[in-house]
Each structure stands twice: as structure tokens, then as C-alpha cells.
């Protein structure tokens, strides 16, 4: 079939001819003719009955897009947005959490029951996955508010004004005016969440700016990064708390802008940028129905997609942090320890105690579960009446165990009884339980250290020592991968309190163990945390919004590389120059600022220019 090739050649020749004859591209003439036709049609069909020079929209825009007032109003709107979605949303999660907790408890109740110190594998794995899902679902109230607010901003027409105002700065970094909202949601001001942030990138029309924004959102300071900051700042910079928090929130945006620029100059160079057409639509009052529909739809889409993937990913990470598990001899060792402690318990309460027989054999485990359940139920019951109901329920479940958990004070035939045997058992069991928890913690710690993740943490020490991280910090940081809240929790179990000193704060315990630490160590950890790779739900979101696994993987690895480079620079560099923690911080800040400003001056590679 030569015909088609002929046509293409023919078209090519005609184009060339046209270009040389008329000194202008046919597409320009085509566009111009369309505009002319549109103009003519409007001329023939539209009459201006009265001249209205300034519409309401124009008058609003005069204030909202004002050179000085505009940014101030924008700041106010951003603050409101953040306050309503993140702050108030988190408050609502306090009400929705019990529902999720009840769901988790329900799952827990149908799984094989826990052991005295060792839980069945099926139970731990399933609960690990359920915890992961529940942790994601917990964000739903925030999403609903967030999506509703975004819909209001879009429908009212204010979003276009936001883009207009911020585009002046952002375009120097290959970003788009609309990149602002995702970054704010992710936590520019310390305390956001990258999941809604990445999701809000949908509104960005420019493909390159969209990808760049998706990739820098996780660098912002999400709420889960905060506990570690607070821990370390409290340990080493307690005199300069406000200053450090300002440093943390501004350094992230400085670095993020630089990253966005570098990405758009390199990896994203070939991505399309849409010609920047910014239309200021007329302000509309959004309709309740329209807003509700959009926000519920987007939430549902999110829930549906995230749940299916979360199950798989959480499972994998959980297995990596659990397997291969502790060895057989260690298991025996812990079992012996447990038996020994149980023996001590029985010796203490004495053979004459009528409850000694009751708790013999497997009954001890049964009692342990009963007591755990009871404590939990009691904690959940707020009112006196609710507490009474809980008591009644547990009395029915096991009247003998009930006597023990009530410390020997209970009613028989309406008369209060003081049972000194039960009281004794209660007291001694408390000690045993403390030992049981210690053993459980030891097992958990040993499992993590021996697990695939833990081994990685230890094998990394020779390299990470240049950043000032020892293997304990490595494990803490690695465990944060599943969810950043884990970092402090893991550190908590690594730096365990010696028996009898449980009241000591984690910060003090860490200081005790890491006597040679300086503020430089803390600074390096903080900076690494600011650049920490996104948590798993965020990564899934990145995959969803960027449409490719490749970008999700990239979003995982580049922050690790960048964070390591920064941590090494600050720690090793600071040590070589003999800087103090504060000096190193200021030096790094100035350096980052210079680099970012310089990058902003590099000309963007504008693909769109061809078309204008």
C-alpha cells in the first residue's frame, strides 16, 4: 500500500511549500482562521445590551489577586485549609477510631488466642496486616474534609487564583502554581500527611509539574515524623526548640524546591509540559450536591484501590521484619525464663492458696488473656455504669478469675467480701506480668534484630557511621519504613528501661546508652528523617497518581540517597570542621539556600515554547 505513504509525502511537500511561500506555519494560519470564524459568529449572534465594565468577579479579583493583599489572603486560606482538614480531621479520627478498633478486636477475637509469651504465627501476621489497613482507614475523615475543601476551592474558582499567585515563584523550579496545595497538605508547616498531598496533585494539569510535585511531597514534614524530631530536639537542643522547628520546616521546602528543579532538568526533562494557560473563571457559589458527590467519590476510589494493595505490601514488610524469627534454642531459653518466673509466682503465693490450683497448667495462660481483656475493657469504659457492665460481663465469663482481678473485693449474695488469697495472687501476678512483658519485649527485639531488616541495619553500620548512625538507630530508621510512627516505638523497645526504672523517659535512656553522642548526631538523624522515604500508603498513592511503579520505586530510593548524603555531609563535614550542632545547622541552611536560589536561576527547558 503505497497510497498512505504518498499521502504523507504529499502533505509534507505541501507544508514545505506553504512555509516557504507564506513564511508562516500552516498550523498558525489554521488557528488564526478558527479565531476569526469564532469572532465572526459572536459578532453575528451576540449583542451587548448594556456595557458592564466591572463584574463582581472583577471586583473580588482586585482584592484577591492584589499584589500585596493576595498573598496575605492566600496565607489565611491555606491556614484555614490546614486547620480544617488536618487539625480538625485528626480530632474526628478520635471518634472514628473506636469503630476501627472494634473491627480489629473482632478480627483478633476470631483468630487463635494468644499464648503466654509466644503468639501463634497466624495471629501475629493477620493482626499485622489488619493494623496496616486500619492505620490507612484512620485517615478517611481527613480525606473527606480535604476532598470537600478541594472541591469547594475548585468549584468556586479560587483554585485558579492560587495557581496564579504562586506560579510566579514556583515556575522557577519547574513547578506549577497548583503545586502549592499538595505541598501544604503534605506538611510544609510541620504536621501534614503526604497521602492527601500526593492525591491533591491530580488537579495539576502540567504533567511535568505534576510528577515533580508528587515526588517532592513526601519530603514535607508529615505528622508521623514529628515524634522523632521532638525526641531528639528535647535531648540535644532543648534551649532552641522554636528555632529548630522553624529550621526543620523551612529547610524541607528549600531542599524540595531544589529537588524539583533538578528533577525537571534531568529525569523529567522529556515529560510534557502543558502550555501555561491560566483562565480566571467567574466566581461561582459551589453547590452542596456537587461538592459532596465529588468528595465522596474520590474517597471511595481511594479506599477501594488502597485496600487491595495495602494488604500485600504490609504483609511483605511485616514478614521482612519478623523472619527468620528467633532460633529454637533461644525459644527454649525464653520458655525456661517464663517457666522460671511462673515458678517464682507460684512459690510466692504458696501452696495453701486455693487459687494456686486454679491457675495450674494451661490455666495460667487463660488467666493472662482474661486479665488483658479485662484491663482493656475497663480502659474503654468511661462511665460508672459502663464499668459495672464490664464487671458483670467478666464475672459471667469466669467468676474465679474475676475474684483475682477485683483484688479480692467482690460481692457474694449481695455482701462485700474481702478475699486475702485473691489479693495476694493479684499482687504477685502483677510482678509476673511485668516479667512476662519484659520477656515479650526481649523476644520482639531479638526478632527484629535477627530479621532480614535487622540484619540489613547491622550490616549497614560500617557505612552509616559516617552519618553518625549506629546499628540501633539504623534499625529504628528502617522500621519507620512501614510507618514513620514506628521509629520512636522501635527505639523505645531497643533502648529498654532496666527493671524498676520504667518511669525514665526514652530520651534519658538513650542518653545513658549513647554517652558519646553530640548534637551533631542528633542533627544528622533529624535531617535524614526530613528526607525519609515515603511510608507505604504514600508510596502506593505515588504509584496510583504517577501511574507507574517506576516512579514509586524512584520515590523510595532518591530520598534515601539524598538523606544519606545530607547526613554524611553534616556529620562528617561538621566533625572535620569542628562545628557545633548549631553551627553545622546554620552552615547547612545557608548552603542549601544558596544552592536552591542558584538552581532557580537556571533556565527551564520549556517544551511548551515551541507551540506558542
Amino acid at each position, binding site marked *: *500500500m503505497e*497510497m*498512505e*505513504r*504518498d*499521502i*504523507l509525502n*504529499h*502533505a509534507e511537500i*505541501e*507544508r514545505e511549500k*506553504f512555509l516557504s*511561500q*507564506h513564511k508562516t*506555519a*500552516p*498550523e498558525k*494560519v*489554521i488557528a488564526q*482562521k*478558527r479565531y476569526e*470564524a*469564532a*469572532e465572526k*459568529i*459572536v459578532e*453575528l*449572534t*451576540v*449583542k*451587548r*445590551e*448594556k*456595557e*458592564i465594565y466591572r*463584574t463582581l468577579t472583577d471586583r473580588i479579583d482586585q482584592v484577591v489577586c492584589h499584589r500585596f493583599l493576595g498573598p496575605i489572603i492566600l496565607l489565611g486560606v491555606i491556614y484555614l485549609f490546614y486547620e480544617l482538614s488536618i487539625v480538625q480531621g485528626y480530632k474526628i479520627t478520635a471518634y472514628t477510631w473506636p469503630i476501627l478498633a472494634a473491627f480489629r478486636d473482632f478480627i483478633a477475637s476470631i483468630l487463635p488466642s494468644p499464648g503466654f509469651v509466644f503468639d501463634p504465627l497466624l495471629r501475629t501476621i493477620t493482626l499485622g496486616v489488619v493494623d496496616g489497613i486500619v492505620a490507612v482507614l484512620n485517615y478517611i475523615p481527613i480525606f473527606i474534609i480535604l476532598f470537600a475543601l478541594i472541591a469547594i476551592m475548585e468549584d468556586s*474558582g479560587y483554585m485558579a487564583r492560587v495557581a496564579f499567585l504562586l506560579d510566579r515563584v514556583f515556575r522557577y523550579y519547574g513547578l506549577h502554581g497548583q503545586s502549592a496545595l499538595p505541598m501544604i497538605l503534605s506538611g510544609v508547616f510541620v504536621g501534614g500527611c503526604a497521602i492527601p498531598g500526593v492525591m491533591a496533585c*491530580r488537579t495539576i*494539569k502540567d*504533567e511535568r509539574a505534576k510528577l515533580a510535585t508528587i515526588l517532592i511531597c513526601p519530603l514535607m514534614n508529615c505528622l508521623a515524623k514529628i515524634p522523632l524530631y521532638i525526641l531528639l530536639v528535647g535531648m540535644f537542643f532543648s534551649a532552641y526548640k522554636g528555632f529548630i522547628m522553624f529550621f526543620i520546616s523551612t529547610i524541607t521546602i528549600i531542599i524540595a524546591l531544589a529537588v524539583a528543579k533538578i528533577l525537571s532538568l534531568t529525569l523529567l526533562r522529556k515529560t*510534557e509540559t*502543558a*502550555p501555561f*494557560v491560566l*483562565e480566571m*473563571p*467567574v466566581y*461561582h457559589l459551589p*453547590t452542596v*450536591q*456537587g461538592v459532596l*458527590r465529588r468528595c465522596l*467519590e474520590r474517597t471511595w*476510589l481511594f479506599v477501594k484501590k488502597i485496600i487491595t494493595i495495602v494488604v500485600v505490601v504490609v504483609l511483605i514488610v511485616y514478614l521482612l521484619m519478623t523472619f527468620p524469627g528467633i532460633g529454637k534454642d533461644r525459644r527454649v531459653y525464653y520458655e525456661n525464663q517464663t517457666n522460671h518466673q511462673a515458678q517464682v509466682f507460684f512459690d510466692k503465693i504458696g501452696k495453701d492458696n486455693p487459687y494456686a490450683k486454679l491457675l495450674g497448667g494451661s490455666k495460667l495462660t487463660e488467666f493472662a488473656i482474661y486479665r488483658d481483656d479485662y484491663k482493656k475493657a475497663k480502659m474503654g469504659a468511661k462511665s460508672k455504669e459502663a464499668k459495672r457492665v464490664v464487671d458483670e460481663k467478666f464475672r459471667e465469663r469466669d467468676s474465679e478469675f474475676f475474684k483475682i482481678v477485683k483484688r479480692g473485693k467482690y460481692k457474694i449474695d449481695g455482701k462485700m467480701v474481702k478475699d486475702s488469697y485473691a489479693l495476694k495472687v493479684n499482687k504477685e501476678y502483677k510482678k509476673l506480668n511485668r516479667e512476662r512483658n519484659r520477656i515479650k519485649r526481649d523476644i520482639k527485639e531479638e526478632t527484629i534484630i535477627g530479621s532480614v531488616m535487622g540484619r540489613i541495619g547491622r550490616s549497614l553500620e560500617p557505612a552509616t557511621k559516617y552519618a553518625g548512625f549506629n546499628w540501633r538507630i539504623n534499625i529504628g530508621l528502617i522500621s519507620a519504613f512501614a510507618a514513620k510512627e514506628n521509629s520512636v516505638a522501635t527505639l523505645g523497645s531497643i533502648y529498654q528501661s532496666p527493671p524498676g526504672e520504667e518511669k525514665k523517659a526514652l530520651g534519658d535512656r538513650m542518653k545513658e546508652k549513647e554517652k558519646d553522642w553530640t548534637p551533631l548526631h542528633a542533627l544528622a538523624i533529624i535531617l535524614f528523617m526530613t528526607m525519609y522515604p515515603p511510608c507505604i500508603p504514600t508510596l502506593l498513592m505515588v504509584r*496510583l*497518581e*504517577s*501511574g507507574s511503579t517506576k516512579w514509586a520505586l524512584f520515590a523510595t530510593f532518591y530520598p534515601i540517597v539524598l538523606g544519606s548524603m545530607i547526613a554524611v555531609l553534616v556529620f562528617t563535614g561538621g566533625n572535620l570542621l569542628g562545628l557545633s550542632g548549631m553551627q553545622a545547622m546554620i552552615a547547612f541552611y545557608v548552603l542549601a539556600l544558596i544552592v536552591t536560589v542558584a538552581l532557580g536561576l537556571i533556565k527551564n527547558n520549556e517544551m*511548551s515554547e515551541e*507551540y506558542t
Partner: protein
Amino acid sequence: MKEIIVAVAGQPNSGKSTIFNMLTGARQHVANYPGVTVEKRTGRYSYKGDAVTLVDLPGTYSLTSYSPEERIARDFLLHEKPAVVLDIVDAANLERNLYLTFQLDEMGIPLVVALNMMDVAEGRGLKIDTYKLSELLRTVVVPTVGKKGRGGGELKEAILNTYQGGRFQTGYGEAYKGCSACPGMSREKGSFRVDYGEELEPILSSLENRLSEAPKISARYPARWLAVKLMENDSEARRLVQKAEES
């Protein structure tokens, strides 16, 4: 019962989604277009015994292939071949919105224009002669106010009529009574064409002729549209011609 597929096109801020909601109510489904993160919204309604499925195209200013949104909109029209295209036009910004209308028209799919946000246009002191517009565009033009739910019934009627290729019979309501009598209400009378000028038109018609002689191409794509696109040096259009050759 037939299933009529209608693509809903329009520039951003033309009130496309309000019209979409007005027509379909709650019967909507949201997914993503394959391979991209652009939302694909579909909705359905039934009218006079026919099931109509509306597919919301991404809001675009034009139908080139510069952005994913534009490509998606264009590909859908080219390959899925909807029975009717419903073009939502912002009455207050008619001139700019027509730019897209012309391109939709060129793709040769029966077109219905919803002249939306009439209230805003009136509020600005604009009086639009919808008869004349309809006559000039040779397309049904239905004035609507999506936010207030005005013009929904007329749109459904216009879509069905356009699908059936018949004349648009019922009136637009009191204010626009008699419109059914005006010419150009049906596409039988030929369609509107943008005049690309004396330098380009001869080239376009020679290209058009050659394209209609190639059976594999003319069966799939409207020749006029393809001719314009080739002169615009649109890489996607060139690819379409090449692909037709290989098949």
C-alpha cells in the same frame, strides 16, 4: 432498547460537570482512563425508552495532542465513535469556547451544543441569538443553566433527535419557542465548516480527496479532519495514517 453513547466535551470551567450531573443524577461511575490518572466519569439515563450512556471527556481548550487530557478526549472520539457529542459551551465566553466546538465539529460526529451559564451571560448584559447561532453552526443549540437545572429535558430531546438524525421538533421552552422551525436544526442540511482561507483551502481539498481515495483511512477517520491535522503537522495524525497502511 438501544444504548446510545454520548461523549460530553467542553472547555474547563464551562460547567461541564454540572450539566453532566443534571442529566444523569446519581447514576454515575468513576474510574480512570486506562494507563493515566485522568478520571473517567460515566453516567446513564434513559429517555423515551432508550438507554443513554454519557462519557465525560476531560476538559480541554483544544483537541491537539499536547497534553494527556487532549489526547484522551481525541482518542475517545476517534476510536470509540460515540453516537453524539454534547459540547458544553460557556455562554459568557462564547468566542473562546467556539474554538473547541469547531474542532469537535470537524471530527464528523453529530454534535449538540449546550449553551450553558446563560444566566451569567445575561447578567453581563449579553444577549445571545440562539436561533442564529444554531443556524450558523448547523447544530442544535440548547440554552441551559446547569446550576439551576434548566434545559435538561430539552438537551435529552436534542440528543435523541440528533441521534435519530431527525429534525429537532419540540421547543426549547417558552422563551425559545419556534426554534424548531429554523434551518440548520438538523444535520441533514450539511455541517458547518471553518473557512481556512484561500491559501489553505485548495491544499486541504486536494488532501481530502486523496485521503478519501484510501479506503482504509476513509473508513476510519473523517477526511477533512485528517487533512487539517496533517497540515497542522500533528504527529498523532501522521501515525494514524501510517498505522492504517500497516493494517
